[in-house]
C-alpha cells in the first residue's frame, strides 16, 4: 500500500458508518477485493494520530459479536480532510496514468 494511503482508506470506510478497529481492517481488506491488507502494526498508530488531529472520535460500544469494542466515527474536520486527500490522490493518479499512457 502506498504511504499515506492507509489514512485515506480509514477515513473513507468510516464515512459510511462508525466502525471498530478490527472492522476497519476487515472492511479495507474486503473492499479492495482482498488485495490490500491494513496491517495492525500501522492501523493503531494511524488511528491514534487521527484522534490527535481530531479527524475521528472514539466511543466504546458493543460489537455484533457482543464484544466490548471501540467505535471510531468520522468528524466534520475528518470529512473535510478525506475530501482533500481524495482530490489530491485523484490528481496524482491521473497525472501518473497520463505519463504511463503516453510515454
Amino acid at each position, binding site marked *: 500500500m502506498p504511504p499515506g494511503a492507509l489514512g485515506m482508506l480509514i477515513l473513507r470506510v468510516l464515512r459510511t458508518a462508525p466502525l471498530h*478497529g478490527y472492522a476497519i481492517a476487515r472492511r479495507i481488506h474486503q473492499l479492495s477485493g482482498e488485495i490490500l491488507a491494513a496491517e*495492525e*502494526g500501522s492501523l*493503531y498508530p494511524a488511528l*491514534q494520530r487521527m484522534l*490527535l*488531529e481530531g479527524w475521528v472520535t472514539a466511543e466504546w460500544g458493543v460489537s455484533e459479536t457482543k464484544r466490548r469494542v471501540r467505535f471510531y466515527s468520522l468528524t466534520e474536520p475528518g470529512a473535510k480532510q478525506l475530501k482533500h486527500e481524495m482530490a489530491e490522490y485523484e490528481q496524482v493518479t491521473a497525472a501518473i496514468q497520463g505519463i504511463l499512457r503516453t510515454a
Partner: protein
Amino acid sequence: MRKLFRRLQYILNRRRRDQDLSDEMAAHREMMPPERRAAFGSSLRLREASRDAWGWMWLDRLRQDLAYAVRMLWRSPAFTLTAVAVLALGAGANLAEFHIFNAIFVNRISLRDNGSLLQLVRHLKPDGKTTHFPAAAAEFYGRHSTELSYLVTENNGPHISNDDDDSVGLTSSFVSGNYFTALGVRPAIGRMLDPRDSDPAAPRVVVLGYGYWQQHFGADPSVIGRVLHLNGKPVQVVGVTPYNLTPLSLWSTNDTPLWFPASERPYLSEPSDPSDAFSRADTEIFVKLKPGMSPAVAEAQLSSLTAELHREQPREFQTGETTGVEPLATLPKLSPPAVMMGVLVLLVLIAACANLGNILLARGLARSQEIGIRVALGAGRWRVIRQLMTENLLLAVLGTAAGLWVGRLTALLVLHRMNIGPAFRVVNDWRIVLASAFLAVLSAIAFGLAPALQSVRQARGAIRARQVLVGVQVAASCVLLILSSLITRFVISRLSIDVRFDYNRMVAVNLYRTNSNFKGARARQTLDEIAARIDRLPGVDHVTSASIPPLGFLSNMIHLPNLPPVYLNDVAPSYFDAMAIPLVEGRTFRTAEQDAVIVSESAARAVWGKDDALGKLWDLGKETPQAAASQGPYTVVGVVKDSGANALNDSDSVEAYVSLGDSTRFPETLIVHTYGDPSALVRDIHAIEIRGVHPYAYPLRRPLDQQTTALHSLALIVGALGGTATLLAALGIFGLLAFSVAQRTREIGVRVALGARPPDILHLIARQYAVPLAAGGVAGIALAAAAGRVMQNAGQLPPDLHLDPAIYATGLAIFALVALAAALAPVLRALRINPATALRWE
C-alpha cells in the same frame, strides 16, 4: 490550538487512554482468525508506537532518566555533595552580585518618569565629566531653556545634626521646590515639599525619610507638625517620604533621612554670601524634555546657555565647556567597574564549572563499566548522553538552588558590610529566579556536555580534556588573585595617602548660630570665647580656624588658565603651625592681612617653575568671597610644604591659602589638634554650652573613612571572589591528583619495585599537569593585565599601578602556595606506595 488541548487531555488521562488502547487491541486480536493472530505482532511495541503519536514520549524518557539520575546521585553522596557545593559557590557568587546590583541600582522606587528622566552632565576640557553644577546654574537653565518639560535639582550630602536627640552627621538632600510634584512622589504620611516651600519667606520645613522616621521616631504619625532643632535651627516636620525613596543621584544609595527645599540651605548652613551660589558645584540636575523634543536639540541649547554662564562666571565654568544629557538608568549599567565586577564573578562560575567538569570526567572514568554495559544492552549513544546530561541538569538545579541561598546570604553580608542602610532589601524576585534558572541550564551544558561525550566515547582522550579544564581553573584563579592583590595594593596606597598633618588626632568644629540676629562684635566675642574654651579642654594643644576643613567633602576649587586646579582656603595665621605644615620660606599671614597669598611648593612649581615664588604677584582671577575688600593681585608672602589634603580628590591639584578676614561668618570652622583621644574631645566639645552658638564637632578622619569604606568593600569583595576561586582550584587540583594517584597505584608500585626513586615518582605525577598549570598561569597574567587596563581607563586606578610586577608575583605566589598545599596529600600518598601492596591492588 485544539490539537494542543487534545494532547494535554491525553497526558492528563494517559493511564485510562493506555488501558483503552490495550483493551481494544486485545479485542481485535480475539476477533482475528486464529491462524492470522501471529501477524498482529507484539502488542507492547504497537502500543508504544501508538502512544508515540501523541508526542509525549520524551516525558516518559525524562521521567525515567530523572529517576535513574536521582538513584545514581543518591548512591554516591560524597560526589553529589562536592558537586553541589562547588556549584553553589560559583552560582552563589553570581547571584550575590545580581542581588547587590539589583538592590543598589534597580530596586529604587519607581518614579513617574523613571524611563524618560535625563541627567545633565558637564563635559569639561580636555575630557573630564561631572554631574555636579553650581546651584545657580540650575536656576539659570530652568529660566532660559525652552526645551524642558521640567527641571528638578538635588544636592545631596550636607551633614545635619538633630539637637533634640543628639544625632549628628545625618545626610540630607536639598531639592528644588517642584521636585516631588514633578516626579510624582506621594508621601507616606503628611505632605511632600511643594513649590510654596521654596519661597524664602515660607516657614522652615523638613520631610523625614521613611527609614529615619521608623528608626528614630518609632513610626509615630504624630511627628507631623513637630518642631525639630536641626543644626540648632527650628524646623517643622510636614511629612514622611514613601518607603525606599532614594535621591536620583547615583552617588547616593541611602534612604536620605532629611529632605529640605533647596531654599533652606542658607538657613541651615549659613554661607550667606550670594556669590556662594555659584562657587560650590554640588547640585545635580535632572530634567524631562518636552514631548517630542530630541536630546540633541536640548543639548545644543543647554550648551549655549552654559557658554553664557561662562561669560558671567568665568571661574566656575570652563571655556568651551558643554552640557549634555544622559539617561538616568544607563549610567550604572555602562560603568566599567560594574561590568568588570560582573566578569570577575563570571570567572568564579567558570572556575566552578571547570572544576565540576573535572569531577565528572573522573566519575565518568569510574563509571565506564556501567556505561559499557548499557551500550552493550543496546542503549544508543544519544540515549546515554541524554541520561548523563539529565544527571548533570539535576546537579545544576540542586547546585543553583543551594546557590540561591548562598547568594542571598552573601549579598546580605556584603550589603551589611557596605553599610548602605536598611533601605535595601534583598528579595528573591522573579529576575533572580530567572537568572538562576539560566545559570543552571548554562552550567549543565558547560560542565556536563564534554564529560558526557567523553564517557560515551570511552576514550583515553579524557586526559586531554582534564588538562584543559585544569588550565581553565588555574587561569581563572590567577586572574582573580592578581586582581585582588592589585586592588588591595590600591586600597593600601589610598589609605596611606601622603597627608602631612596628623589628621588622626584632629577634630573639626563647625560653629552654627542658633539665632540669625546673632552677629557683630558680640558674636565675635562669643566665638573667640568658644575657641578659648576648646583650647583649655584636656589634651588640646592647637586651635586654629579655616573656611574649609581639610579632607572634607567641601572644597573651593578654582580653575586658572594653563594651571592644574587650585584648592583655595582661607586660613588663620596659626593654621600652618596647628596643622604642622612647615614653612619652606617666607612667613605666615599677619592678622587679617589682605592681598597676601601663601602657596604650596607644588603650586609654586606649577606657576613660577624654578623661579623663587616669594614676593611674586599672583592674580587669582576674582577675589575670594571672604576677602571681598581686596581687589588687586595677591603677593606671595610664603611657601609651605604640600599638605596632601586634597590628594584624595585630585592628585594633580595644588594649594593656595589666603588670609581669613576678621569679619564673622557662620558656620565658623575651628580645627583642633589634640594629643589625647579625638572622640573624647568631640564629646567634650559637644558638651560646651554657650548661648547663641551650637558647636558641631567631628574627627577629621571621618570623611576620609567614609571615602575609604567603599574601597574597603571593593577589596573585600574581590578578595572573597579570589578566595572562592582559589578554594575551587585547590579542590580541583587535590581531586585530580588523588584520582590519578589512585588510578596509577599499580603502575607506581611496579616502577618502585623496578627501582624508581621518589623524584622519579614525583616527575611521573607532575608531568601531566605541568603544561596546563603553566598555560593557565600565563593566561591568568594576560587576562589580569587586560582587566587592570580596563580599570585604569575607567579612572579607577592610578596610572601604571597595574603594571607593577610585585602585584603579579603576590597573586601567583598565593596561588602556588595553595596549589602546593592541595597537592601535598596525594603526592605523599604516591610516595608512600608500597610495591608489595600496590601489586595486589585493583
